[in-house]
């Protein structure tokens, strides 16, 4: 059992404010991912939770108890570092058992615990090796094993997969998700990779410039991003943005004039918007449909064929638009192409980059892994202003 509360945490290094008042709740057994571009403060936030940095102001609570002044080792947390930070002069077994040795645990008990963790991670044949003699993936597993041995209430991961090659990263991602099920522990995971966030998280916290942009389940962020930044950050390839003008606002949505002359009604709450406003239309590449009658058109500049799907980069007057199309489309470069979109899939952003709320919630936006449904109920999105 471990919950974490972060209240108004501010971190200043000299005159730079790295974290500008973070509020966050992490529920028991939840897999929370902090995601954001580099320099957004996500690692600093993790290090403050770990106790390796102190918060300038604000409170940290684990299970309701304030831990600001508690040392890193006494918080009951374990951390996996990006560089793995294994002790190079110790064997795998000694690496994993180091915390127990410091805690004065006897040799026999220590060995049992290490073997147990080694079994979970399939490290048994490597126990006598030094880190130097391990591959990247094995080192990663030892670093995780070192965390498991401590039996922490919360696991902290600081970009643990970024030093691995792509294939191994996918494999470790699955392994981490499995581990989360098996250990049934609370995990906080920092990454700049939105795919890692989408695939593993129960709850994603999107950070930018030291502030929380949005908190929510992966599907919620994908279908209901609260602002332009989150919309562009979550999803791959990136969401397309088109400048549009509001024509009419009604209870059924906002009708906008598209570049090229067409119009479309997007089902969003138009309160505060009025005809004539300059808005931005956001459509994900996978929601653009190639259609000879479509209201939008442009010239294909680049075609990337991935086999199962094809990415078309289409030049319009307002920039390049990405379209994810079927793998078997026969278009050629420089060809003129028409396309459209399902208005229900489109997003509208106002002049400040804030999303106009959809009139309908996407049915999957509340979904997390089935076993953890009820714990997410009380951790629903906390609407947050844009940057």
């Amino acid at each position, binding site marked *: 059992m471990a919950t974490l509360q972060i209240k108004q945490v501010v971190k200043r290094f000299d005159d730079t404010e790295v974290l500008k008042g973070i509020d966050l709740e992490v529920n028991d057994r939840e897999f929370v991912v902090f995601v954001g571009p580099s320099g957004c403060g996500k690692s600093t936030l993790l290090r403050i939770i*770990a*106790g*390796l940095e102190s918060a300038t102001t604000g409170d940290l609570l684990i299970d309701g108890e304030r831990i600001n002044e508690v*040392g*890193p*080792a*006494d918080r009951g*947390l*374990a*951390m996996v*570092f*990006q*560089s793995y*930070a*294994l*002790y*190079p*002069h110790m064997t795998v077994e000694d690496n994993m058992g*180091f*915390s127990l040795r*410091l*805690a004065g645990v006897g040799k026999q008990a220590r060995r049992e615990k290490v073997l147990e963790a080694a079994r979970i991670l399939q490290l048994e044949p490597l126990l006598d090796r030094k880190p130097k003699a391990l591959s990247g993936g094995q080192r990663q597993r030892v670093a995780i094993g*070192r965390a498991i041995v*401590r039996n922490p209430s919360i696991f902290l991961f600081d970009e643990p997969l970024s030093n691995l090659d792509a294939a191994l990263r996918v494999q470790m991602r699955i392994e981490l998700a499995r581990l989360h099920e098996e250990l049934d522990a609370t995990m906080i995971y920092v990454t700049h990779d939105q795919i890692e966030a989408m695939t593993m998280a129960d709850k994603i916290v999107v950070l930018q410039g030291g502030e929380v942009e949005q908190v929510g389940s992966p599907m919620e962020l994908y279908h209901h991003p609260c602002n332009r930044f989150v919309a562009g950050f979550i999803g791959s390839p990136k969401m397309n943005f088109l400048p549009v003008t509001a024509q009419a606002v009604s209870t059924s949505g906002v009708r906008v004039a598209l570049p090229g002359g067409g119009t479309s009604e997007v089902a969003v709450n138009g309160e505060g918007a009025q005809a004539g406003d300059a808005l931005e239309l956001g459509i994900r590449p996978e929601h653009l449909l190639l259609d000879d009658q479509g209201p939008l058109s442009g010239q294909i500049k680049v075609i990337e064929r991935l086999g199962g799907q094809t990415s078309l980069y289409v030049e319009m007057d307002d920039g390049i638009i990405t379209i994810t199309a079927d793998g078997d489309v026969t278009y050629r470069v420089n060809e003129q192409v028409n396309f459209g979109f399902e208005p229900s899939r489109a997003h509208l952003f106002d002049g400040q980059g804030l999303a106009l709320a959809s009139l309908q919630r996407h049915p999957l936006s509340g979904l997390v892994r089935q076993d953890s449904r009820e714990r997410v109920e009380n951790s629903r999105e906390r609407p947050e202003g844009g940057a």
Partner: protein
Amino acid sequence: MNTSRLQRFILAVLAWSITFVIFFPILWMILTGFKTEAQAIADPTLFFTPTLDSYAAVQGRADYFRFAYNSVYVAFGSTLLALMIGIPAAYSMAFLPTKRTKGTMLWMLSTKMLPPVGVLVPIYLIFRDLGMLDTRIGLTVIYTLMNLPIVIWMLYTFFKDLPKDILEAGRMDGANTRQEMLYLLIPLTLPGIASTGLLSVILSWNEAFWSLNLTSSRAAPLTAYIASFSSPEGLFWAKLSAASTMAVAPILIFGWLTQKQMVRGLTFGAVK
């Protein structure tokens, strides 16, 4: 770079020549030690009948082993002390720097630029009042202070090369500062610490200014022993050479045995 055989040959000749030039005085000193006084001042020759007369005469006049014992005592004692103070100091500077760390380090280094003779009188008076003149402890203390800036600087650069994450991982694992140093920092930077220690031993061994001014007989190390052979009634080259050979032999052999360690330590990090 593509080095041809000729280039390599020239380089080898150059390296050997420079080495020889540097080594020549030592070689000549060793040779002279085996000559008689007459041969020593005669026309230089490489061919003579070696004799141990000078060594016997030198040993007859002063007990070499007492001086050697003092040298070993102060060189290793001061090194041990300097490391005991320097390791925690460098640790805090490398891993917990403050705004003044850089300034402090530059100030420490600046003390090495001051001519020691500038502080001779005050130090002499302090030593006199504390009764530390001509004591091994006194000399050990002054050598420790003398080497501390270099020791801290060297350790600082070695510690800086250690990934911070490893110590942080240790802290997450429950290590306190002492355990961090004992179980992680020291074992991981041991080559660097060793070469720092070796350098400190060598510097202390070769130090002459303070030993000549602060000791006379009881605590006098080998540097004072050599100096005692340059007497007012003229130089006895053979005896002086014999004494010098005996004085530098231990540190030369020590340096030779540990040179691998020294080089490894001094390039530690650079070739990691």
